[in-house]
């Protein structure tokens, strides 16, 4: 070996003291392009729907709980956690994100010695790029999701007011599949449905055309699916993630799409309901949706169920209140007849308290479920209300449901802004009247379903908001009646309640009508519960306050529906009935769950 060879390695040392040719940390000086797909960012609009997790082809996303973030209506409380060992920065998660909260920063360098650091929860973990305003966002005109709802065929307003035919005509099979296809199956809606129905699962059955499986899913939580597929208050849709950028999924209509395709004669075979008698008896007071839902689930558990109902037919307010253009009788009957077919004994025309004492039922049955609803209309209690042309909204609807003419005349004033008022107004239109709806608050405060408000306007009802009735007077024609009303100013409620209308006594009006229909609210009639039980049952105003599983302090008594909840809609009554049935089963059998 030559000397040169021997010392040549040491030559490189002279390079050690020269300026380096490479850049030490080149990335710091070279920011990503403005739309570079760098690291994930998530804003507070995220509601944890998990659609990003579903679409990621690399399984790079897990939805995880985050400290300090609670699950609440419309928010799963979970947030996407990214695994950068798996991510390929395809940005599908960004493109699909239902709230557009997820995007990519243009930050692309992340140096750390901790291998676990490459798992992080975007938006909640503090990352250096969290304030980055560049990077990749979905373009406005590029959509992976279908934002527009498939509209359902409906009668025109003119056709609607011409009679009592059902206004909404139902989806065709093809329409139902298209609408079902829009659902991203996130399940966010389930917690908001009072009955926690398996919404994404039954929507999937519509997509597959497997209506029998759909029916089985519906009946797990709701034996009034034909009814609810039509008139449910669809609270679930208010939180549907598809509503963030477009229309929420028509969850209610898809429920209807299932039931409309299964004839009732096939229910028993499909649902496989078999009743094995267990020798115990339960009395149900009230055959509305609350009572009949309890009857169904109790019967499935083998209880002998007797329903005591004051009226001649079952259905409660769904029959005597909700008019047939929204819920045809045969659809309500479809639900009710199936429940009755399991062997529920019905005692019609039996008003507890009048025809049979409450204490007798308490003695005769192992447990009672009470769901008597709210059927006492509040009176106007203003001067002159005893005028014969002042009618009650519930009575008008009851007459129409029973095939009688309530005689509303040609010009009608409806007082109120709830369901009863809207239906009384729309029924009056169908009977040929011009209708004014006087309401004390603003239109946006009306408790009626916004759809009903819109439809009533489309059908020609005139809404007169901020109008406070103060007196009823005789009109010059004895078949007419005059109302005096004053304008209202809204004042904020100090305690955070809804704004309160205050009469402006210098702005009064007078108007004459053929009749005035009062629909300002209704209460329950529970006077039949004797005073001796006061210490064992909790009340708030004229409603029950039930404990766990709808049970009262009078152990045998379970309560639910409108008389015991604040939501006062069919689905809540149905859920109360189901819940109480489970409670009664626990109570009577000692089983942990029914």
């Amino acid at each position, binding site marked *: 070996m030559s000397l040169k060879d021997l010392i040549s390695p040491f030559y490189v040392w002279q390079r050690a003291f020269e300026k380096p040719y490479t850049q030490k940390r080149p990335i710091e000086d070279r920011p990503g392009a403005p739309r570079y797909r760098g690291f994930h960012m998530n804003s507070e609009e995220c509601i944890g729907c998990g659609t990003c997790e579903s679409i990621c082809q690399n399984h790079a996303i897990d939805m995880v709980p985050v400290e300090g973030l609670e699950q609440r209506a419309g928010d799963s409380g979970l947030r996407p956690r990214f695994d950068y060992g798996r991510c390929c920065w395809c940005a599908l998660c960004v493109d699909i994100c239902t709230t557009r909260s997820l995007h990519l920063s243009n930050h692309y360098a992340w140096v750390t010695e901790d291998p676990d650091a490459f798992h992080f929860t975007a938006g909640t973990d503090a990352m250096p790029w969290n304030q980055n305003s560049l990077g990749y966002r979905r373009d406005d005109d590029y959509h992976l999701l279908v934002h527009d709802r498939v509209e359902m065929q409906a009668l025109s307003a003119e056709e609607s007011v011409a009679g009592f035919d059902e206004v909404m005509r139902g989806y065709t099979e093809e329409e139902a599949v298209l609408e079902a296809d829009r659902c991203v199956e996130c399940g966010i809606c389930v917690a908001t449905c009072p009955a926690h129905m398996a919404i994404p699962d039954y929507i999937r059955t519509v997509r597959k055309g497997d209506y029998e499986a759909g029916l089985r899913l519906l009946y797990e939580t709701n034996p009034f699916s034909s009814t609810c597929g039509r008139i449910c208050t669809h609270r679930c849709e208010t939180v549907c993630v598809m509503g963030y950028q477009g229309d929420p999924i028509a969850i209610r209509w898809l429920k209807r799409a299932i039931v409309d395709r299964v004839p009732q004669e096939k229910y028993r075979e499909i649902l496989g309901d078999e009743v094995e008698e267990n020798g115990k008896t339960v009395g149900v007071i009230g055959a509305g949706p609350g009572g009949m839902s309890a009857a169904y689930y109790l019967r499935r558990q083998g209880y002998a169920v007797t329903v005591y109902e004051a009226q001649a037919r079952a259905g409660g307010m769904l029959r005597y209140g909700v008019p047939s253009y929204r819920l045809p009788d045969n659809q309500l009957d479809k639900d009710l007849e199936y429940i009755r077919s399991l062997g529920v004994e019905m005692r019609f025309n039996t008003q507890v308290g009048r025809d049979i004492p409450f204490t007798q039922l308490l003695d005769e049955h192992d447990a009672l479920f009470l769901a008597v609803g709210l059927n006492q209309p509040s009176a106007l209690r203003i001067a002159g209300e005893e005028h014969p042309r002042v009618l009650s909204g519930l009575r008008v609807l009851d007459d129409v449901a029973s095939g009688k003419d309530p005689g509303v005349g040609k010009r009608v004033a409806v007082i109120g*802004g709830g369901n009863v008022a809207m239906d009384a107004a729309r029924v009056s239109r169908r009977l040929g009247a011009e209708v004014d709806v006087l309401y004390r608050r603003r239109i946006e405060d009306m408790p009626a379903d916004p759809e009903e408000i819109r439809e009533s306007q489309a059908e020609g009802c005139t809404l007169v908001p901020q109008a406070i009735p103060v007196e009823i007077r005789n009109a010059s024609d004895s078949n007419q009646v005059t109302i005096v009303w004053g304008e209202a100013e809204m004042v904020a409620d100090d305690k955070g309640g809804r704004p309160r209308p205050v009469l402006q006594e210098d702005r009064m009006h007078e108007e004459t009508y053929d009749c005035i229909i009062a629909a300002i609210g209704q*209460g329950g009639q529970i006077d039949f519960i004797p005073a001796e039980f006061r210490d064992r049952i909790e009340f708030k105003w004229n409603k029950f306050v039930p404990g766990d599983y709808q049970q009262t302090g009078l152990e045998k008594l379970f309560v639910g529906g409108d008389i015991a909840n604040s939501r006062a809609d069919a689905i809540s009554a149905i859920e109360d009935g189901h819940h109480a049935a489970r409670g009664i089963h626990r109570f009577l059998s000692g089983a942990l769950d029914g």
Partner: protein
Amino acid sequence: MNTVEEILDFAIDREQQAADFYSNLAERVSSAWMKDMLLGFSKEEMRHKGKLKSVKLGDKLLNADQHVQDLKIADYTVDVEPAEDISLQDALIVAMKREKAAYRLYSDMAANIDDPELKSLFLGLAQEEAKHKLYFEVQYDEQIMRDN
């Protein structure tokens, strides 16, 4: 009634009478929930009484010029009888009208007296009654006119 002490005793006595009125009615009704509710009203009056007693010991009444919202519901509802089968609606009407009458009473007394200390005491009592009336009017708005 010439002293602060006497006036407060009068007002305290009125609250006791109101509490007795509701508890007597509660004894006469036959249903569990109505009894419960009337006893609740009676308790509310006893709370008012407690408040006035503490005023006697030095606590402050509502300031006479503090604004208490008047929803004017009591003004336009008809008079009703406190019968044994009284409904929730009518019980609330009775209650708000009683509070309104008390408000009027103290306001009138305030208008007819010159002594500034006693005048402001009457006005303070009137404000208290206005607040009680507002409570029942709000309940009427919530419980009875839920759809209006």
